[in-house]
């Protein structure tokens, strides 16, 4: 995660410097940095699920101690459903990109190099949420 964040900064900085000094902008860096940002977001999201950092309104649930445990289970199950769906459907999306040989607009590399990461990390999130569900029991 730190690596993708650091790379993201370096690439964008390089872009600014090069454009400033040479009038050439290498726009393809945008593609790479955006991809890094997507990966960083998903990996970060998986950490945030474990640590309970995601933004949620727990105000009402905290006022009803009897419901709290059930609410936490509900939250985990809902997140599981969401990312489970993303993992399955994302695989289909990446598979389509692979089958139809879709290439990216500025670098021209196969699109599935990028899109395959979404289901992969979604699957990782699913695993972590399952572990959490077991621990909470």
């Amino acid at each position, binding site marked *: 995660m730190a690596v993708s964040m650091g790379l993201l900064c370096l690439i964008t900085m390089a872009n600014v410097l090069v454009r400033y000094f040479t009038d050439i902008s290498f726009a393809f860096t945008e593609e790479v940095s955006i991809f890094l940002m997507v990966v960083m977001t998903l990996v*970060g999201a998986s950490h945030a699920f474990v640590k309970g950092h995601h933004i949620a309104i727990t105000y*009402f649930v905290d006022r009803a101690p009897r419901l709290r445990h059930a609410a936490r289970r*509900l*939250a985990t199950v809902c*997140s599981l459903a969401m990312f489970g769906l*993303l993992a399955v459907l994302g695989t289909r*999306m990446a598979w*389509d990109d692979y089958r139809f040989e879709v290439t990216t607009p500025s670098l021209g590399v196969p699109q599935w190099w990028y899109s395959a990461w979404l289901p992969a990390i979604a699957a990782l999130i699913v695993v972590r949420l399952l572990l959490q569900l077991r621990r909470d029991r």
Partner: protein
Amino acid sequence: MDWILFGIFVVLMFSGVPLAVAMGLAGTAVVAASGLGMLSLPTNVYTGIAKYPLMAIPVFVIAGLIFERAGVAATIVRFASAVVGQRQGGLAMVAILVAMILGGISGSGPADSAAVGAVMLPSMVKAGYPKEFTAGVIAAAGSTDILIPPSIAFVVYSLLVPQASVPALFAAGMVPGILSGVTLMFVAWWLSTRHGFEQPTDEPRPPFWKSLKEAGWGLAAPVIILGGMRSGYFTPTEAAVVAVFYGFFVGMVVYRSLTWRNVYDVLVESAEIASVILTVVALASVFAWASNTLGTFDHLAKAMLGAGLPEIAMLVSIQVLLLIAGMFLDAISIYFIFLPLLIPIAIHFQWDLVWFGVVITMNMALGQFHPPLGVNLMVTCRMAGVSMESTIPWVLWMVAAMAGTMFLVTFVPELALWLPRQLGYL
């Protein structure tokens, strides 16, 4: 169908399911029920965050953290106390001033409150301020952060409302942001003199020029960020990256307070903070796509306009609605939930969308330190070790001051629009 979307979302949201997931599942349910094609789901999630302007969010978060770790805040505190001087309420005013200056570097309220709290809380408590008052002042001061550019909230607003460009919003937030800060300083000073906080000590006032020289490195950051954008050298994202490298340079070379270990921690921490925001953005795009395809918000907006409220009444009721929402949610989530509904209304009344963005962002700022759930206040109360309820007698004054400024900007739009017009952004 509209009801499925909202019903699921509201029920899940209030039962404590992460907001991002609640929005994503509600959108998914609608997509599934109306046969819109399930493959739109991963596509929307991916394209929802794969946007270049969004890169400004993680990078501004790093910028704020790196300046905090570099120890810039302490030098700015010395400079601010040289400006304000030793007087009753002096330190409270210093805290607000420092929060405003740091607000020109980072773009998120809770981070700013934490940075200022770490530096100012101990010295304010030592000088005889009650902890409750101190927590309230710092939380309120931190909220000016999302108004004073650069502001992450404005970046997201501009993404959702392309008619309002990021530079125009940044410029428009400047005057209202400073105005709120000054109003808060006045309130803090007035409360302190009335209750006799901060007994005079014989600590010498830091020499003005020396402290300016030390703080200069930190004070230059907002100038670089805003100046660079104004002169057209960089986009907001690039300005943020330049700020990161500048902060890195200051911390490593000038103050020598940063280690590689700190830098690594900053990267990890900012990635975590940014990914929480971006997860909302990603899954909210499923919600947004579903509701757009159904036209849900157009129906709702029509219904609201059909009620035939006059313009002022509509504006005030929007502000009250957002104020309540702001107590529970952060600015970015609120934009994703409410803007699709509010923008058609704003367009109907021909409100200026830049001004509208500033007004609702002020509303968000207010919500950030309004008990019982202001995020900034949560942060500062935790640091001070007091309960949020105990801050109410102090915070309500500041809420009133901020609300006053907000209504001023509401009814005198030029306060927001003058600067961007001067700079040629409108």
